[in-house]
């Protein structure tokens, strides 16, 4: 009889687990509110994008994107927990619900958008793939790389672009694929490969990790388009809209000249665009299921897009990246957000 009870209990637990797995009643927003913090997937460490310091505080542009989402929901940008993920792990972590948002310099591609059950919410950094080579090999252009060995990170669009580029130019290459960007740098530093290839912004970050950064140079060629941005699960349109409009709010804030410094003063502005963004007029927040002042909270806690850029990757930071494509559309770049109305 005891055995029977054990068996029945086991079966009941199993059925319970399965049934629970099926019931996806709560929306992402509700579960984030219940939990009291946002769960955000980031890289295992990439300066400028997401990198923990020695006290475990995360900084970077991808980290700030998560903080902005948290600020919009809770009015507090600190209510985020970060999950470090490798390129190989990231999509599974999001699909399985381990994280609410994936903000991990992830390239928006058709396959990922259409077949992984994911939605890309926008682009927080426009990038392109480049090459980092040691100065001693004397190469100044990618067309001279025929037969070279490349260190690459596994599970990235980089792997595919490289093969495409070399096939299109009828050249040969040897790919050496590592799990983490840390290992690719080690492979490059030990001389196992001639070239380290990745997104240009990452090359700048990885170069700064070399013992002698001046021994390596980034080639002028850019061989791909890499729009990087946050990703959410499919099937929750409200959550999709929230993450999408947090970034749009930041871009619009920069366009309207609202910064974390002047945001309190801007609250008294007569400009209807500013009033809608800061929640002093209209019901923009309510439409998204957020507090009315979500725009104010984002700018107050994290800043507008330009502030976020300059703080993490812009000129003056170790990465020292010009705005370029990432400047506002009004200033020669392609950062363009739909109107907040």
């Amino acid at each position, binding site marked *: 009889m005891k055995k029977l009870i054990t068996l029945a209990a086991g079966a009941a637990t199993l059925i319970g687990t399965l049934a629970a797995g099926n019931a996806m009643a709560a929306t992402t927003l509700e579960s984030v509110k219940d939990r009291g913090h946002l769960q955000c997937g980031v890289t295992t460490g990439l300066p400028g994008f997401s990198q923990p310091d020695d006290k475990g505080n995360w900084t970077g542009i991808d980290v700030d994107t998560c903080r902005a989402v948290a600020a919009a929901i809770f009015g507090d940008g600190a209510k985020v927990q970060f999950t470090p993920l490798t*390129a190989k792990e990231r999509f*599974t972590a999001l699909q399985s619900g381990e994280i609410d948002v994936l903000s991990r310099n992830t390239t928006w591609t058709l396959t990922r958008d259409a077949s992984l059950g994911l939605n890309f919410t926008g682009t927080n950094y426009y990038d392109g793939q480049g090459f980092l080579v040691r100065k001693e090999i004397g190469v100044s252009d990618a067309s001279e790389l025929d037969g070279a060995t490349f260190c690459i990170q596994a599970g990235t669009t980089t792997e595919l672009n490289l093969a495409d580029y070399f096939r299109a130019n009828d050249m040969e290459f040897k790919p050496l694929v590592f799990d983490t960007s840390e290992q690719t740098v080690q492979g490059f530093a030990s001389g196992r490969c001639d070239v380290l290839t990745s997104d240009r912004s990452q090359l700048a970050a990885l170069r700064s990790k070399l013992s002698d950064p001046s021994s390596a140079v980034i080639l002028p060629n850019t061989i791909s388009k890499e729009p990087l941005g946050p990703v959410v699960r499919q099937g929750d349109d409200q959550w999709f809209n929230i993450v999408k409009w947090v970034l749009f709010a930041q871009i619009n804030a920069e366009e309207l000249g609202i910064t974390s410094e002047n945001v309190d003063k801007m609250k008294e502005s007569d400009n209807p665009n500013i009033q809608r963004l800061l929640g002093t007029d209209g019901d923009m927040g309510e439409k998204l299921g957020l507090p009315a002042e979500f725009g104010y909270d984002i700018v107050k806690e994290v800043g507008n897009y330009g502030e976020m850029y300059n703080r993490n990757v812009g000129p003056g930071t170790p990465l020292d990246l010009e705005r370029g494509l990432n400047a506002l559309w009004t200033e020669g770049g392609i950062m363009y957000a739909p109107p907040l109305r």
Partner: protein
Amino acid sequence: MNDSNPHYEQTRRKPWNDPRVRALIFQAVAIAAVFWSGWALIDNTLANMESRGISTGFDFLNQSAGFGIIMSLIPYDATMSYGRTFWVGLLNTLLVSGMGIIAATVLGFIIGVARLSSNWLIAKIALVYVEVIRNIPLLLQIFFWYFAVLRNLPSPRQSVDVGGLLFLNNRGLYLPDPVAEPGFGWVAAAIVIAIAAVVIIRILAKRRQMATGKIFPTVKVSVAVLIGLPLLAYLAAGGPISWDIPELKGFNFGGGITMIPELAALWFALSIYTASFIAEIVRSGIMAVSKGQTEAAQALGLKSGMTLRLVVIPQAMRVIIPPLTSQYLNLVKNSSLATAIGYPDLVSVFMGTTLNQTGQAVEVVAMTMGVYLTISLLISLFMNIYNRAVALKER
């Protein structure tokens, strides 16, 4: 009538009181529960994936992969399918596992026997080897070999050059590749004939020994035949082999056979690590053979080498085989640590890149698990067959 015969009543128990019937029912229920929950698990997974817009099915295996792989035993380029990447990865796994099993077995037997040597120094060296190697995590050893191998090797332009034929640098070991020219068929035929001859010599020698007790120097003669016959054919046919010698072209060497440092590091680490366990298994196997056997062999006048080879080891094998099988299985499964140093094995190529590019985690992981299960079961099967062959036969 029944009332008057209580014994009869007892033997005709109600079915739910019969332990055998009850056992059957409970087992049936348990099996049904297992199958039902398995089915529910699969159905639930598929339904959830469907509802979240994740593609399912094995159609992706026919799509073009579009990424490069540094080493493949079969022709591969980025235009080929994900199905092909599966085979490339699988063959690379089998290559490193096979090389590892052979090297670990040879090294393990030598160390295991050395551990029991009467020479104090040899025995202690073997002891230190076993204790050091088996107590350091394999992953660390792989890293050690990879970086120890890599860091100390020169760049391609400063390669270690052995007679202009063999080159060693941080991209790998480059060896001349033999290319068969017309007339090579004679050499191939000579090799086949030599192997057949060796088999016949062995049988005849055994028969002669049984009949007359005279020992024929089988090993020496076999080696002579195996080398001599193909060599004669090679010379007679006018040297029908040309060598593709590696040459420095641009960044790297081209031509010849390449052994990449990732393969070398993984192979060394797996062999050396597993050998330390095999050594202990061999030691325990030999110690399990009663000392009387050795003494009896010596009393018959057998030399110590022959005693070991003909009397002790065959009896020790019965004890050695089952745990040895486990070590082989461990080695194959441990080869998946390849992904840490970029050796393109099944886990790195298929469960890594392919999974990520297609996003079909369930299918890819299921296939990979299926492969390791199949390899393990096959090794187990062959070792069991061998075990039955060497098992003590009671007549």
